[in-house]
């Protein structure tokens, strides 16, 4: 065919010129550079901590080795073991009951079992100490009833290692429950039915089939709970159980040795990274444990009589111990005995907390959108790696982040001050490390993963063909974002905001270390009151935190409700 003859004179082609094509390439490189530098910035605290491994701190380090290091190691180790068993024992049976059986109240237990997630570990520790220590109502009642005096009867000490294990297990088991339940629901009924036709009893099928199939998911939940355990500062500090986090805190503030504190932090980080690897590995494994792409509604076994009653007790216990009793105690403190009233100062506290949390959530959402879109638009491996690094912060304990943030910014402030003193003869003060900047920065390092995950999940639901359909119907790139993506992702964006908001509100150690002078939040207030042995006055701020903490629980249970058996379940 002769194309040349049919060719008409060329008409000018739109507005896209070669120069503009080059610009778009340059924008892409600029955008890529932005993402990489963001990831580096987020990784800065970790890098700072590990950089100090090579700074010698022989005196303090030797002192630590001689005195407390063995305690830190032993306590952290037993805490991990104890909480590990605790969350498995509390989380797995209720997950099994709720996915495979039907009993009175089961629909309620399904979401109510998540309630303890709303309770920060340090707050539950305050409530049980208030109830169970020597002057508390329980021991007073025992003395009144029996007439025994101090030292004449045995009562377990709450403020101890076993106490800390119990507290942490009670609020962290929902991680295991959530993931195990999703895994049980994902298992094909056929596998279990095949096992029954091959002569296995229901119990045998559970231990030899369902449990091994769900193991990767359970390990994922377990490693998340253990990361939280290692990150915990408030509980172990209040109970006087010396672990890594309290050790880092004390070395930094008590001994004033940043190198030794950073080295302790680096040691802690190494353990945490092992947990991260465990989590990644088990998530990876979980893919091979999918038994079927087809899901049918699980035929749940009806439990009646004593079995039904037993199921109810097993499911009620964690909710009562991990949520109801502490909340009742907090209510009692807040509204009857506490001297803390809702006055000007308290409202200022609330305003501070909300302002800080909202600001941090907004920033985290912005960064998450940037990273999320970066990953969607630019498939270069460097960009993917950047997003991954930026999301690593969720594993890093707040204490470590606080130190990792302080080290570089204090250095930067010192340099700036030296410069300005030399140049203009005036001192700038602590420009970064003394302001809200470092605190917001630390929050974003720690919680960026939360918003990133939510934003990515939302973006993932927007198929690439939606973008193309929008373009072919006349939308420009920004129009696709505004008219298609934003309305479709509304829910995810709101969720991302809320989750970070609540996490920031609950966060204690980073806030404690990094807050500007005289700037208090609810969490810090509760901590200070409890540290002053004014537990009742810690009630009101604690209650506020717990109430706000219920928001993500509602969100979670909503998504659980939609992802019932028979539909695909996302862990």
């Amino acid at each position: 065919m002769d194309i040349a003859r049919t060719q008409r004179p060329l008409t000018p082609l739109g507005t896209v010129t070669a120069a503009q094509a080059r610009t778009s390439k340059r924008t892409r490189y600029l955008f890529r550079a932005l993402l990489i530098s963001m990831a580096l910035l987020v990784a800065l605290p970790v890098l700072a901590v590990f950089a100090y491994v090579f700074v010698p701190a022989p005196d303090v380090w030797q002192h630590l080795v001689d005195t407390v290091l063995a305690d830190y190691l032993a306590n952290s180790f037993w805490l991990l073991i104890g909480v590990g068993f605790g969350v498995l024992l509390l989380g797995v049976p209720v997950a099994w009951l709720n996915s495979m059986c039907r009993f009175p109240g089961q629909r309620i237990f399904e979401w109510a079992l998540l309630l303890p997630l709303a309770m920060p570990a340090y707050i539950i520790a305050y409530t049980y100490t208030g109830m169970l220590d020597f002057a508390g109502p329980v021991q007073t009642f025992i003395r009144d009833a029996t007439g025994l005096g101090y030292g004449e009867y045995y009562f377990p000490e709450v403020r101890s290692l076993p106490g800390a294990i119990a507290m942490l297990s009670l609020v962290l088991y929902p991680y295991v429950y959530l993931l195990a339940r999703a895994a049980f629901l994902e298992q094909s009924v056929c596998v279990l039915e095949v096992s029954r036709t091959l002569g296995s009893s229901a119990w045998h099928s559970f231990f030899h089939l369902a449990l091994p199939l769900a193991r990767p998911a359970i390990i994922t939940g377990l490693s998340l709970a253990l990361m939280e355990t290692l990150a915990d500062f408030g509980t172990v500090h209040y109970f006087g159980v010396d672990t890594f986090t309290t050790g880092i805190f004390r070395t930094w503030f008590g001994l004033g040795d940043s190198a030794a504190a950073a080295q302790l932090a680096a040691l802690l980080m190494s353990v945490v990274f092992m947990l991260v690897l465990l989590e990644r590995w088990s998530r990876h494994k979980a893919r091979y444990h999918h038994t079927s792409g087809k899901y049918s509604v699980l035929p749940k076994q009806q439990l009646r009589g004593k079995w039904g009653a037993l199921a109810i007790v097993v499911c009620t216990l964690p909710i009562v111990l991990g949520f109801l009793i502490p909340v009742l105690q907090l209510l009692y403190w807040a509204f009857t005995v506490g001297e803390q009233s809702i006055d000007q100062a308290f409202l200022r506290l609330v305003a501070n907390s909300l302002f800080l949390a909202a600001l941090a959530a907004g920033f985290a959402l912005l960064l998450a959108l940037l990273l999320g879109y970066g990953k969607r638009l630019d498939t270069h491996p460097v960009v993917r790696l950047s997003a991954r690094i930026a999301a690593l912060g969720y594993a890093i304990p707040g204490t470590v982040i606080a130190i990792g943030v302080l080290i570089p910014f204090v250095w930067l402030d010192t340099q700036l001050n030296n410069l300005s003193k030399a140049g203009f003869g005036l001192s700038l003060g602590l420009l970064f490390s003394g302001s809200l900047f470092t605190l917001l920065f630390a929050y974003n390092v720690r919680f960026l993963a939360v918003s990133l995950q939510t934003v990515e999940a939302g973006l993932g639901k927007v198929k690439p063909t939606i973008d193309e359909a929008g373009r072919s119907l006349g939308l420009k790139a920004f129009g696709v974002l505004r008219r298609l993506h934003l309305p479709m992702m509304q829910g995810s964006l709101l969720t991302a905001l809320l989750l970070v908001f609540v996490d920031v509100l609950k966060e204690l150690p980073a806030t404690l270390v990094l807050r500007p002078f005289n700037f208090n939040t609810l969490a810090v207030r509760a901590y200070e009151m409890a540290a002053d042995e004014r537990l009742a006055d810690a009630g009101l701020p604690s209650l506020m935190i717990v109430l706000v903490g219920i928001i993500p629980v509602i969100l979670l249970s909503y998504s659980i409700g939609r992802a019932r058996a028979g539909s695909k379940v996302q862990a």
Partner: protein
Amino acid sequence: MTIPINKAASTELQLCDVSVSYDKTAAVKAITLLIEHGQLACLLGPSGCGKTTLLRAIAGFEALSSGTIQLGQDIISNTQHTLAPERRNIGMVFQDFALFPHLDIAGNIAFGMRKQGRKQRRQRVSELLELVNLAGYERRYPHELSGGQQQRIALARALAPKPKLLLLDEPFASQDMELREMLAREVRQILQQEAVTAVLVTHDQHEAFAMADVIGVMRQGQIQQWDTAYNLYHQPLNPFVADFIGEGSMINGEVLNPHTVSTVLGEASGNVPLGCQPGSPVSVLIRPDDVVLTPEAAEPALASTAPFSTQAVIKAKVFRGSHFLYQLQLVDGTRISALAPSHQDYSLGVTVSFTLDMRHLVILQR
């Protein structure tokens, strides 16, 4: 390659030497073709042959590494420029439909008509819903519709802005096998009523046959043959097209003279490819419907009138309702298939006689 050009009709889409490369590998290689106004064209080929890439290049989602694409009077793509998809006035129906979940059906269909007045939009929406047989569905949401209904909405949405050209990327792939042909006929009717020029991409030849005026068979980024369905079936240009379209077997033959080849089944007359000297080896395409099994009772009478008749052993059979598809083994071991009415039911291993009834002898160079 021959491309049928009707000089009288106006050319709507013109591709000249179009290539698309990812990194260093070319997914589409030097394709040249013309599609006339109102024509329904189809790109047919196995997965990975580059048909979807070509479609996306026409839509403006892929840049060209060589060649030009011209729509009506305008060059819309060449190696330097790629006119943005939103400025091409080309509609597209996606494999997964890509309906906007947050908008109702009316919102979806009216999406591309933002510059028109509200009254106009509403009128066009109801007109299109009428056309796709879903009148009254304006306020429903995509997730409330069945797959087939979603598909028709996706079609209506793409047609709404009256595009110069409509592209359909495997539009029936997610439908049940039994539904596809019917849907394809429905869509063809709709497209003809709207008098739109369209390019369809599919790997299913029945879909292509049911829908397209002209079909391009693609393989490894190149168009093997650009022709009508009838010609693709009866006059394939090369062994790939012969094999890909319909069923059939190749048997070996040898050229005797420019009009005759000799095969194990005897001599056959047809157009021997140019450049084949007497004595050179060729392949002859035998379609299952070319092979007529001789009913035993009538055998002697028919045998005398048929061009030639021979015997074969039945090696396998598949019941297809109205027909049996038999695998026959000839004396020299060559296997061919035969389509027989379902009352001709033979057991495996039986020797049967057959004649060849070939109106389109296809001879390909070996």
